[in-house]
C-alpha cells in the first residue's frame, strides 16, 4: 500500500506506540490520585505539557490544555471565548476553514451571531484587505486556519494578527493549526496567536487526542464542566496514554521539521511536476509557493475524482478528492469553490499528502501509474472535443 492521504490521518509512529504502552498496561493510575502509584502518570502529563509548550513555543506550560481531538480544541476555543465575552456578537473567519469550524459558525449564526466569511483568490491566498475592513469594535473573535487541509496553502498568521491587533486590540485570534503541526515550525508568541488548536493523529500520534493553547491573557468559559482537571478548563480524567503518545509524536516532529521542509518537500515537488508534465489535462489548483511541504492538490480536467481514487485504490494507492461523489454531499469541495477552480477541473481534483514515511520508490510508482489511469478515464469522457483542444494547447 502507498499511503498519500496524510492530511486525513497518519500512521502511528512505532516510537509513539512504545511511549504509550506503559500507560495502557501497568501504569494505569489516575494522575489526580494521592499515592505513589499515580506519580508516573502525573509526571508524564507534566512532561507532555512541557513538550507541547516547546512544540508551539508557548511561554508557559500552564497555557496548554489537552483535549480529545482537533474539533474539541476548536469548539472549546471558539465557544469558550464567545461565552466569556457575551456582549459582543461579531466573528470573522474564512470561507475555506475546516468543516468542524465552519459548521460551528453556521450554528452560531442561527443563535444571533454575525459571522463574516473572508474569501480567497485563485491561488488560495486570503483576502487580507477584506479581513481588515471587516474588523470592528464588536468583533470578539477572528478564527483563521494556519494552513488549509485540502490545498496546503499557508495563511500569513503573523500579518493577520498584526491587522487584528491594530484594528481592535481586544479581539481574540484563534488559529486552527491542525494542518501545520509537524510540517512547519510554530511559534505562538512570535505570530501573536491567542488560541491555537492541534490534533495528534495528524502528526503520527493516535486518533483521540489533541491540544489547545490559550495564552495567559485570554479567558474562556469551559466547554466541558466537571472535575478540576486542566486547571478547570477541560473536565474529565486525562487520557494519559494518548497524551504521552502525542508528546512523543511532537518530539519526533520537532526533530523531523528539517526533513519535512527538505526531503518531504522534494518528493512532493517531484510528484507534482511529473504529473503536470506527463498528464496534459492536469492543472495545479493552487499557487506554487506558501504551502505546507507535504501537500499538492491537482485537478484533472473533464474526468471525475472518485473514479480516479477507485482506480488508484485498485493499485493500493490512497489519496483523496474534492469531488462531490466522494462525500455524498453532492457538492464539490467548498475550498476549491471558494478559489473559483473551474468546474472543468473541480470534480476531478485529487489531493496527495505525503509524510516522512513516504519513499521515493512510492512516488515513482505513482508517477508511473497515474498517467495510465487518467488516460483510461479520459477515454470514456463525453468531452473529447474539449480534451482535444486542451491537448493542442499544451
Amino acid at each position: 500500500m502507498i499511503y498519500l492521504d496524510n492530511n486525513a490521518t497518519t500512521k502511528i509512529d512505532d516510537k509513539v506506540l512504545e511511549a504509550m504502552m506503559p500507560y495502557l498496561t501497568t501504569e494505569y493510575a489516575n494522575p489526580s490520585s494521592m499515592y505513589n502509584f499515580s506519580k508516573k502518570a502525573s509526571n508524564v502529563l507534566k512532561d507532555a505539557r512541557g513538550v507541547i509548550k516547546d512544540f508551539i513555543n508557548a511561554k508557559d506550560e500552564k497555557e496548554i490544555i489537552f483535549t480529545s481531538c482537533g474539533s474539541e480544541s476548536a469548539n472549546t476555543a471558539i465557544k469558550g471565548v464567545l461565552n466569556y465575552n457575551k456582549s459582543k456578537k461579531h466573528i470573522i473567519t474564512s470561507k475555506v476553514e475546516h468543516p468542524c469550524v465552519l459548521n460551528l459558525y453556521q450554528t452560531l449564526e442561527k443563535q444571533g451571531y454575525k459571522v463574516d466569511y473572508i474569501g480567497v483568490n485563485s491561488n488560495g491566498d486570503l483576502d487580507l484587505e477584506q479581513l481588515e475592513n471587516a474588523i470592528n469594535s464588536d468583533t470578539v473573535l477572528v478564527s483563521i486556519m494556519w494552513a488549509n487541509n485540502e490545498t496546503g496553502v499557508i495563511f500569513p498568521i503573523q500579518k493577520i494578527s498584526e491587522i487584528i491587533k491594530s484594528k481592535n486590540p481586544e479581539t481574540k485570534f484563534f488559529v486552527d493549526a491542525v494542518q501545520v503541526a509537524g510540517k512547519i515550525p510554530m511559534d505562538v508568541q512570535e505570530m501573536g496567536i491567542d488560541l491555537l488548536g492541534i490534533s495528534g493523529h495528524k502528526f503520527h500520534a493516535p486518533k483521540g487526542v489533541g491540544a489547545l493553547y490559550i495564552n495567559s491573557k485570554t479567558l474562556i468559559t469551559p466547554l466541558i464542566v466537571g472535575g478540576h482537571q486542566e486547571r478547570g478548563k477541560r473536565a474529565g480524567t486525562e487520557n494519559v496514554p494518548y497524551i504521552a503518545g502525542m508528546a512523543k509524536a511532537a518530539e519526533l516532529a520537532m526533530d523531523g521539521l528539517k526533513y519535512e521542509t527538505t526531503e518531504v518537500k522534494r518528493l512532493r515537488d517531484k510528484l507534482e511536476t511529473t504529473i503536470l508534465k506527463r498528464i496534459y489535462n492536469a492543472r495545479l489548483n493552487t499557487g506554487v509557493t506558501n504551502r505546507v511541504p507535504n501537500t499538492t492538490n491537482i485537478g484533472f480536467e473533464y474526468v471525475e475524482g472518485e473514479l480516479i481514487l477507485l482506480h488508484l485504490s485498485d493499485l493500493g494507492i490512497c489519496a483523496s478528492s474534492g469531488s462531490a461523489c466522494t462525500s455524498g454531499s453532492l457538492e464539490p469541495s467548498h475550498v476549491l469553490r471558494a478559489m473559483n477552480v473551474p468546474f472543468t477541473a473541480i470534480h476531478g481534483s485529487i489531493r496527495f499528502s505525503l509524510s516522512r514515511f513516504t519513499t521515493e520508490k512510492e512516488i515513482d510508482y505513482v508517477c508511473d501509474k497515474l498517467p495510465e489511469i487518467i488516460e483510461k478515464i479520459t477515454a470514456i469522457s463525453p468531452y473529447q472535443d474539449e480534451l482535444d483542444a486542451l491537448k493542442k494547447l499544451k
Partner: protein
Amino acid sequence: MWDYSEKVMDHYRNPRNVGKIDDADAIGIAGSLACGDQLKIYLKIKDNIVTDAKFQTFGCGSAVASSSILTEMIIGKSLDEVRKITNKDIADQLGGLPPEKMHCSVMGYEALEDALKGYGDDYQDLDDLREPEKAEKIVCTCFNVTENLIWDAIKQNGLKTVEEVTNYTKAGGACGKCKGLIQDIINTYYAKEKTENQLSPTQRILKINNIIETQISPELQKDGGDINLMDIDGNKVYVKLHGKCSSCKNATLTIKRFVEQTLRTALDENIEVIEV
C-alpha cells in the same frame, strides 16, 4: 468508502460499449459538467430493435457502471422493451447501489428517455398522471432537476421522503431551498395516486384497454386464446374470450384469477370482470 457491489466494480474497472456511434439514430444526454456527472448514450435502431449502443460518461464509479450496464441491457431489445426500463432496473442489474448513489441510475434512465424522445411519437404512457403544463418546470436550480424527473423517480422507486428524492435525483442536495417544493411534489403524487380511480371516463376506458392489450392478452395468446374488451359500466368490465379460451373449462378461473386480479392490482380493487 462506498460499499459497491462486485458488479459495480467490474463495470467501472472494465466498462462495456464505451465510445460514440458516428451515425447514431438516437442520442441522449443527461447531467452536466457543472453538476459533476454527465452521460451521453448513442443508439443504433433498426426495425424497432436497438442493434447497438455506446456511451461516454463523466462521473464516478457508479455512474460509469450504470451507463455500462445500461448499454448491455438494451442491445438487442425492442423499443417497447427498452421504454419499460426504469432506473430501478438499472440499479437491480448492478446488484444494487448505495442509497446516496441512486441518482447515477436515474441519470442512465434520463439519458435513455432523452434518446428515445424522438422515437414513436404515438407512444403514450397511460400510467402518466402528470399535469402536462408542469412537466418541464425546473424544481432544483442548483442541479437543474425538472419536476418531470422527480415525478418519475418517485413513481419508479416509491420514494416517500425528500431525502430519498435527493439521493435519487440530487434535487435539494446543494442549497436546499427547493426542499419544500419537493415535499409538495411528493404530496401531490400520493394524493393523485389515491384518486387514480377518479380518472375521466375516457382515460379509464383507455387504461383498462391498454392493460388488457399489453398485459393480459399476450399471456392468453401463449395458450392459443385471446381476449377483447366489450364494454365498461362503472366497475363492471365486460370481456369476450376467443380461441381456445372460449371453450376452455377453466375459463371462469382465468377470468377471475388472472384478468380480474391484474386489473384490480393495476387500477381499482372494486373492478369486476364479466364474460359475455
